[in-house]
């Protein structure tokens, strides 16, 4: 099976600055792939290289099985840019018509597709209003419709929910779910980790233009568990003994917190404590949020 996206050591330097050091990743067809990293990690530059907006300094990449810059492939790609600005003197319908024509879509298909998409993003009542009268959220919606005009096989969404209210965010989430059900590959660049947690199959963490880790979201979030133990007579040697399950053990009075890689450690921990004559009142597992993981993997320096 060919990958929807495959990059090998993709690199971009702007004069002295290295924006992307060496991006190597594979995105499988049909998955929702989250691209995470602190500000300035090179996320947008990476997307721009894949779309042919920025020429890589080195490295190579394939999109839908063709090398970068293939125009036939670009006809099968949708793109919602970050901080998108469009020709705001066009009405929503004219705007979609323009972009559909640039996709070389036939007039009849384009007409029905525009109506469909305006409906999908809830802008049908505003279809003849000029974009300059639109709110940020409405622009984001029309931008999203633009990215879906050609029924793309691969969609790049760069911060698709940044200007949206909760209703708009849910809409984007639903749209992503629908696209996924139809087999569309989605490359999602987002700061909103809760968003990513809900929608993505796999995520890549990047920092300084390099992939730190790629992981299935489910195993990532389900796997790492933080356990809080509330018990009497927790002596330092007993606490030290907990280190066989975790290197990260923090004691705080009658409470001990440790991170384990997987839930199956819990019964063993309990048996250990009971065997040591510890009176256990509570043993509470807590899944780590993506945010905790993000900070664990990327660090708190924000990549600066």
């Amino acid at each position, binding site marked *: 099976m060919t990958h929807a996206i495959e990059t090998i050591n993709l690199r971009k330097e702007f004069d002295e600055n290295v924006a992307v050091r060496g991006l190597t990743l594979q995105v499988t067809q049909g998955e929702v792939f989250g691209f995470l990293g602190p500000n300035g990690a090179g996320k947008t530059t990476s997307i721009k290289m894949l779309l042919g907006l920025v020429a890589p300094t080195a490295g190579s990449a394939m999109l839908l099985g063709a090398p970068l810059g293939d125009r036939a492939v670009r006809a099968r790609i949708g793109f919602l*840019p970050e901080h998108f*600005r469009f020709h705001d003197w066009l009405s929503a319908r004219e705007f979609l018509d323009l972009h559909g024509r*640039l996709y070389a879509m036939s007039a009849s298909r384009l007409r029905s597709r525009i109506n469909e998409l305006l409906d999908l993003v809830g802008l049908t009542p505003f279809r003849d209003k000029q974009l300059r009268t639109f709110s940020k959220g409405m622009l984001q919606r029309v931008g999203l419709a633009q990215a879906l005009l050609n029924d793309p096989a691969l969609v790049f969404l760069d911060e698709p929910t940044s200007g949206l209210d909760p209703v708009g965010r849910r809409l984007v989430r639903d749209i992503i779910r629908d696209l996924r059900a139809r087999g569309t590959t989605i490359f999602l660049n987002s700061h909103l980790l809760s968003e990513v947690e809900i929608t993505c199959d796999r995520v890549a963490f990047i920092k300084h233009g390099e992939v730190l880790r790629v992981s299935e979201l489910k195993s990532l979030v389900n796997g790492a568990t933080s356990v809080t133990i509330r018990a009497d007579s927790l002596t330092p040697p007993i606490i030290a003994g907990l280190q066989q399950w975790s290197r990260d053990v923090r004691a705080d009075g009658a409470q001990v917190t440790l991170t384990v890689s997987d839930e199956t450690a819990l019964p063993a921990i309990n048996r250990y404590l009971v065997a040591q004559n510890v009176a256990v009142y509570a043993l509470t597992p807590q899944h780590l949020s993506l945010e905790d993981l993000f900070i664990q993997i990327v660090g708190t320096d924000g990549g600066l």
Partner: protein
Amino acid sequence: MATFIIARLTFLEAIRRRILLSAFLLGVAFLILYTWGFYLMRQEALPSVPRSEISSAILRSGLNNFLTLAGLYAVNFLAIAMGALVSADTLAGEIGSGTIQAIVAKPVRRAQIVLGKWVGFAGLLALYLVLMVGGVMAVAYVLDGYVVPNVASGVALIYLEALLMMSVTLMCSSMFSTLATGGVIFGLYGIAFIGGWVEQFGALLQNQAAVNIGVVSSLIIPSEALWRRAAYEMTPPLAQVIGISFSGPMFTVSVPSDAQIVYAVGYLAVALAIGVRAFARRDL
């Protein structure tokens, strides 16, 4: 196909952003003032014309020619300014705002985007010149039944000059910011303008060094030379001989050659090609 879509978009933008309307209204204001001035000057000058039938006809035609070319000189400048103003921001502005990103990611060649804009602006300039040149020429025709000679080649040269400056602006706009583009274009226009004057004086005073400065300036930017050739084409030989011709700010003493027209066409083509290439290679 994409070229045509972008050309149409460029045209639509001029309409929607009221560029076309304001140019049209100001153009009409210019034509009204021009007509008024033309009329007053004829009133003033014609009674002093000698009675003799032939010399009267010659002077009358000379005056009409002078006034028409004065009007065309203003139109020529306005067309250059118009072409430069509308095209200076087109690429630089869309790159700066990011509008261009969603367009370039489509299955189009970047060259088609630049060429589409060029075609759109060329259409706008043609429309503008039809209105303004037509208006100026109509005044002499309506008041006196006068038509300048070689209208077609004269107007074609004015159009070529407007296209030349627009192409150079588009080239700069694909490489620099809007403000830098404006600076370069007006700098070039200044060189052409001063160079043209120096060359005329040089020719009049038979100073070869001054003529050479003019030649160099029209190699740097051949716009003014095109105007002088256009003015020369549209001035009757007799008017030139008796010295009541209007060509440029000065009389056309030194006439640009055919080679200079060919040079200007080549210059335009190269500017456009550089613009296309620069935009194709640029990180957006």
